[in-house]
């Protein structure tokens, strides 16, 4: 009963024909060549979906409640606006870092990573100020809850990227600063684009929808 169904085909090494030589291929690549880039894209999709649904929740609650915001006044927006400007401005050094990483220009990459670390830290600090200006606490009502949730959700991404940038910056000043690390810098820059772009709709929702 347990005999094989039909003849089995050999997969023996002896018969294998060598048809393709891989030995000349490079051992790392940038952008869409690199699996890590695709992995990062996958996580963007996941996190982007999370942001989209959280924003969806915001809009859902907004249309459900006859008045919005459920607070005496809309949130103070100076810190948020400043942060937005900072994040948008950081797109430029981020791009420079990406380019220098591709060129494997160690000196410049070191400089760029320091700049990006400082930008990240400044943005996190501003975010903490943003919370103080909301004028509503998270446990007061659903408006307060979803506003805090949106800011906090984005904050976790900021913190993750800053942490990553700091570690990479540290690595670049050690003997590990070679080859593959440059493509890591590229992936880190890619992530920063996502952090900045995902902020824009949140900024509009949190600060401008209540003023509408």
């Amino acid at each position: 009963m347990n005999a094989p169904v039909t003849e089995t085909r050999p997969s023996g090494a002896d018969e294998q024909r060598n048809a393709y030589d891989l030995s000349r291929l490079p051992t790392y690549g940038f952008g869409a060549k690199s699996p890590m880039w695709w992995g990062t894209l996958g996580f963007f999709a996941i996190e982007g979906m999370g942001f989209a649904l959280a924003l969806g929740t915001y809009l859902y609650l907004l249309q459900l409640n006859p008045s919005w915001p459920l607070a005496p006044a809309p949130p103070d927006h100076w810190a948020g606006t400043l942060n937005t400007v900072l994040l948008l401005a950081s797109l430029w050094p981020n791009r420079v870092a990406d380019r220098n990483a591709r060129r494997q220009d160690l000196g410049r990459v070191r400089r760029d990573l320091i700049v990006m670390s400082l930008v990240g830290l400044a943005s996190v600090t501003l975010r903490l100020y943003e919370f103080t200006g909301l004028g509503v606490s998270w446990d007061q009502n659903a408006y307060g809850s979803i506003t805090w949730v949106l800011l906090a959700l984005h904050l976790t991404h900021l913190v993750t990227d800053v942490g990553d940038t700091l570690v990479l910056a540290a690595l670049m000043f050690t003997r590990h600063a070679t080859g593959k690390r440059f493509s890591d810098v590229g992936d880190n820059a890619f992530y920063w684009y996502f952090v900045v772009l995902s902020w824009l709709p949140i900024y509009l929702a949190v600060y401008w929808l209540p003023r509408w």
Partner: protein
Amino acid sequence: MSDAAPLPRDLPRDLRDTDLDGPALSERLARIWGTGRGVIARLSSVDHKVIGRRYIATAFLFLFLGGLTAIVMRLQLARPENGLVGPDTYNQLFTMHGSTMMFLFGVPIGEAMAVYLVPLMVGTRNIAFPRLNAFSYWVYLSGGLFLWISFLLNIGPDVGWFAYVPLSGPEYSPGKRADVWAQMITFTELSGLAVAVEIIVTVLKQRAPGMTLDRIPLFVWALFVNSFIIVFALPAVMLASTFLILDRLIGTQLFNPAEGGDALLFQHLFWFFGHPEVYIIFLPGTAFVSAIIPTFARREIFGYLALVLSLIATGFLSFGLWVHHMFTTGLPQLGAAFFTASSMLIAIPNGLQIFCWIATLWDGRPVWRTPLLFVCGFFFVFVAGGLSGIMLASVPIDTQVHDTYFVVAHFHYVLIGGNVFPLLGAIYYWFPKFTGRLMSERLGRWNFWLVFVGFNVAFFPMHISGLMGMPRRVYTYGPEMGWGDLQMLSTAGALVLFSGFLVFFWNVAASLRRGDIAGPNPWGAGTLEWAAASPPAPQNFDRIPLVTHREPLWAERAGLPVATGLSAAYRELVVTSVAEAEPQLREASPEPSIWPLVAALAVGATFIGSIFTPHAVLWGLPPIAAALTGWFWPKGTPEDEA
């Protein structure tokens, strides 16, 4: 093979697979790719086959535990006013049953089979991001154990597998039970998401040279599409469970209507995930069917393109149906009708799949082995369940049968028909690949008939119980309701079903030791995993196959052409382009590491701690950060620096 020592550091770093041949090459690669022998080495393994095996075994363990809860429920319901368990235990039982089956069995089993089989089927040496893979497994295991230990400590959740608010909210579920549910969900879904990304990247970037998009096996297509559904669906339930835990632990008001929140918001978020979830469970079933049918019909699949397109269409449509679980919540009529239409529309891709499979069988020569029996069982049961789904999709009809045993019957027909039947067939099919031994055909037949008959006797009567007015989730009912006989019949069927599973378990256990030796390709199948040894060597293939056809082993009878030039000194695999699978890079693949386990434990402790105090999140951060740094810190080896 697995007794290889950890990577020997003294090998010449530029040794290539062209420098060696035959057994010398196999042995060398096995040493490089192998998992060491000690406890730490085993816990550090990043081999997709080792992890895949653990994943599969763990998913079956949870199927078994979920099955046990089902048996207790069935015994309780066998007679009216039965006193075997009280309402409190019963409510925990069905919550544990549903949550275990959906979150700890249903989603993971598809991913588990994918973790093992996809790299073999696409002809690569390991999954993409192997350490993340190890991490996902540990997260899954600890999340599942956490749920079950809580249950044994009598703080198991008792609010149903979809835990509707306000019942699960702070006011009506004091204590920790609902928190356990919410954190377990967030935690285990994390692992599901990570695996989905690994599979997507493996399929996109690590296919063997020449495996163009239209040569990807249907099995891989199904799990690839499935991974996309996971990526877009799971965030919704994570958000829902996070919102719930925030409402419960730090007093947010998201679901509290008195403070501007909304109870239906939870339902929308949950079912926006929940409906795709059922296809996340079904698509692996279609993957197994698509792999088994051509082999046992001795004919290549009919309608490859149509099958791929229906998978994709199912994926898209599945995000547009969630409201059909909420037809009785009083949503606007026209809106509800839209979801009737979209739900019924999904019959088209589903029907197309069924028709293509039957057309393949029609033109074939069936080989009557156990896997094919289970595929026939799948047709019988799943189509019936799909058609009862079409009944539920009608708003007016659903107002009568919603939340009755009719729905319970529907979803067991589709879940067990669409997932468990193909899965059992798949285990019979790939068991020789996993273990090198065939399972017993004689026991296989017993297994099939007991499961098939037991299943139908257990679940067909539930349609009628439902039509006789029996609601679901009741721990008992009065004798005057007239449901007793049918419920007794269901219980009897469930016991037969259970005995079928015992035969299965017996067959697995016995065949592991005494089964006939299989050889690489016992069924004469056509896809790449059958070109590897049974069980596969740690490196899967000594030389990377070059793919020239959708069924390479059928097309290349003289032996597969190969691509050479990868390192024989350290772990290296070939990265290819997305559409044409042109080789692009030779990339180093990570070495074993204990850090994924450490990271999973740190994350797990943080999640569990957060149930008791929100500060746990802060305490948890430093250990998590430390574990992640250990994980990613460069090892200073040339390939790492390359």
